[in-house]
């Protein structure tokens, strides 16, 4: 959580919602030259030199010293601020009241908390909600076509944080930071880094860039292949930062999911992700914000935990059904619960429970076009966003395989007549819109890691 802004005089600090964070692995001031061509403007520091902090300030960068639990946190924060950093990041599980004490001591300096998911200050006024708990996005190794596969069924599962980010963002306007680090003991390819960036960004979140030690060493040493990878990462970060309007858009589509972000919404691999992997556009609606307006434009509402709704919330769904909407409620006895302990993924038993709901949703939705339908996207995830005036729709695509995907088809409702494919390399290509069975369609030749389809009336 952020205590206050405007702590630095003499230069205009970016607003916290615009911070593009990175765990800075280097100590010397010259390392900041690597930021050229990237939008990164917020450095999370552990070991650093005074020269680094001074140079960062000159460049208009925000520097946050990372403090982990242990020892006198308040004293550590005071010492950090004395060293000239812009503010503090408290990362980990601290004793109750620690953050408040640090904030009190920090005065106008920012204090960001990176917590376990179940300790996020959801619904608060905090401009940044950070968590160190996130899955490393991608297709698990056993789903890549290895000999462990036993039958010709289904698509690959994709580990993603998109459902969690969307649930959190549906209940507030905070910037969502995912501060997980690359998996230890694995070779992290450039594509995997790009997927981590895009996985967070397509849902309006930000991955706190963190390089594995080998990559950081090679990059600092000037290794050309590391520099190429770094430039690609910078370009992808910049791609999303150049379009702040995307973060302001909300999910589009005719399916709404009523679920408490503080319960099942905290999960990765939960019902939102189950729906996402089928590329069904879905709007998460927290019960806390369940109003007739929040269901505008939707025709189907899935109530994940009917027993948990208040009478006014129930009334909203009842009115929705009376006005022609379809309400799908969870199986009898199902309760959407806060994940136990620090877990962020489903246990086998919980997965089976959610599968019951998922089967119902799948059966109800069938092959309907609920806004957008995508084809040949088994290794991809998508997010469909709409502008407030309804004139523009955005379809983000992220490819989680190690290979480009060719020949993607997008069919959409809404009478959009202009379609443009945007790529992180800056290219914009006008696509031919043709009539499809339902609405219209376009064909996309190739998606490497990420692309965005912009539809306009």
């Amino acid at each position, binding site marked *: 959580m952020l205590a206050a802004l405007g702590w630095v005089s003499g230069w205009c600090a970016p607003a916290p919602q615009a911070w593009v964070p990175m765990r800075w692995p280097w100590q010397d001031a010259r390392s900041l030259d690597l930021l050229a061509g990237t939008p990164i403007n917020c450095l999370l520091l552990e070991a650093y030199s005074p020269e680094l902090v001074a140079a960062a300030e000159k460049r208009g960068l925000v520097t946050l010293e990372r403090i982990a639990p242990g020892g006198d946190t308040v004293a550590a924060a005071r010492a950090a601020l004395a060293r000239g950093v812009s503010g503090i990041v408290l990362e980990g599980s601290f004793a109750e009241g620690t953050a408040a004490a640090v904030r009190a001591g920090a005065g106008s300096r920012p204090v960001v908390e990176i917590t376990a998911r179940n300790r996020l200050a959801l619904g608060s006024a905090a401009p940044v909600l950070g968590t160190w708990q996130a899955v490393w996005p991608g297709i698990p190794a056993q789903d890549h076509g290895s000999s462990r*596969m036993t039958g010709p069924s289904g698509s690959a599962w994709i580990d993603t944080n998109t459902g969690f980010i969307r649930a959190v963002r549906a209940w507030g306007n905070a910037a969502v930071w995912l501060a997980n680090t690359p998996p230890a003991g694995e070779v992290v390819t450039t594509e995997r880094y790009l997927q981590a960036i895009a996985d967070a960004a397509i849902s309006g979140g930000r991955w706190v860039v963190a390089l594995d030690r080998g990559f950081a060493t090679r990059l600092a040493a000037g290794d050309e292949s590391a520099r190429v990878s770094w430039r690609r990462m910078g370009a992808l970060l910049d791609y999303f930062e150049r379009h702040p309007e995307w973060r302001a858009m909300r999910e589009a589509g005719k399916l709404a999911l009523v679920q408490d972000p503080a319960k099942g919404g905290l999960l990765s691999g939960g019902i939102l992700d189950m729906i996402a992997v089928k590329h069904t556009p879905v709007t998460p609606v927290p019960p806390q914000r369940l109003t007739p307006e929040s269901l505008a434009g939707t025709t189907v509402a899935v109530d994940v935990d009917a027993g948990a709704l208040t009478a006014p919330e129930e009334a909203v769904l009842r009115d929705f059904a009376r006005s022609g909407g379809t309400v799908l409620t969870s199986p009898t006895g199902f309760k959407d619960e806060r994940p136990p302990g620090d877990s962020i993924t489903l246990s086998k038993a919980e997965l089976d429970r959610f599968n019951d709901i998922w089967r119902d949703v799948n059966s109800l939705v069938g092959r309907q076009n609920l806004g957008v339908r995508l084809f040949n996207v088994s290794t991809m995830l998508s997010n469909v966003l709409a502008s407030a005036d309804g004139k523009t729709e955005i379809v983000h695509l992220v490819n989680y395989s190690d290979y480009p995907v060719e*020949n993607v088809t997008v069919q959409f409702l809404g009478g959009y007549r202009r379609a443009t494919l945007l790529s992180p390399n800056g290219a914009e290509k006008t696509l031919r819109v043709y009539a499809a069975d339902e609405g219209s369609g376009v064909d996309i030749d190739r998606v490497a890691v990420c692309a965005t389809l912009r539809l306009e009336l």
Partner: protein
Amino acid sequence: MITRREWIAMMCAAPGAAPLLRGAAAPASPVSIARCASYDEDVTARLAAMFDQLGGLERLARGKTVAIKVNMTGSPGMRVRGKAPALTHYTHPKVLGATAYLMGRAGARRIRFVESAYASAGPLEESMLDAGWNVRQLAAAAPLVEFENTNALGKHKRYARFPVPGSAYMYPAYDLNQALEETDVFVSVAKLKNHATCGVTLSLKNCFGNLPASIYGDDAGRDEPNEKPASGRSLVGHQGTRQPSKSAPPELHFGASHDPGYRVPRIVADLAGARPIHLSVIDGVESVAGGEGPWIGDLRLVQPRVLIAGLNPVSTDAVAAAVMGYNPRAMRGTAPFRACDNTLLLAEAHGAGSADLTRIDVRGLTIAQALYRFES
């Protein structure tokens, strides 16, 4: 595995020199082989030349309804090393589109692409889109092109019954999608590849996919078809642990064998008699070796760079197996039929065609010229 020299000897062998290499009275028919280095080549021109070598398509197709059986085994979402399915285990849409175009040019009245889309009763076009195919191009290949998912009733109101002529191996008759009955010319467009259960997947085995999972699927209805099938055909077809829906004729000797290597080749041979194939086209430009799809471990990407076509499926498959480096008359226990009976010989015994290379007139490339060993 036999050597190139043995192949040449086999090709030249006089009838009677090797009883196993001879099909008795089953008809043989010419088979054409052409080199096609990649799908970027003019596939239509290659196939046109091949069909001309077989006597032309006009007499086969003029004024007729043509069904083209596609090979889209398994979910389109499953990939071999991320590659498009058409470059590995699905027939390539360019081969399909070219075949449809040439059929249309030969005067076919209607072209219908048919396939039992895996675990789905949805439109076949959607499965094709999920495979990355350009359906609009396929639809424009001929004046009237339709698509039918034969995994259930599809666009029809009833199933059609196809009795097995003579003495059936497994079922006396099969209930199939009616599109397969409303067909004057049935074309099997297959992939040149191995099959874990049957040794090879060629134009005969491709037609195992004629079976609707609504009736022959793991989740088929007990009494009536399940019009929302969501599984494969393992229990009924491969394992024989359950009967098809009671609406269809039951297995003749239920419980007699649960060996997929016994059962599937016989079902395929039955189907070759029940729903005869008039033209076989085998896509061997790019493929996989070691199995039929990504769920099989240790698949290898291969580029045989050939197209094979013939008017008799058994003869065509025999030539194709030879091109793969196999003896098409090999018995169980010998590659590629290590753990299964030889589908080609079973179909031959049904009278569907001859697998005897000495009786088959190979046109275009010779087998020796096209030889691409699937096993070293």
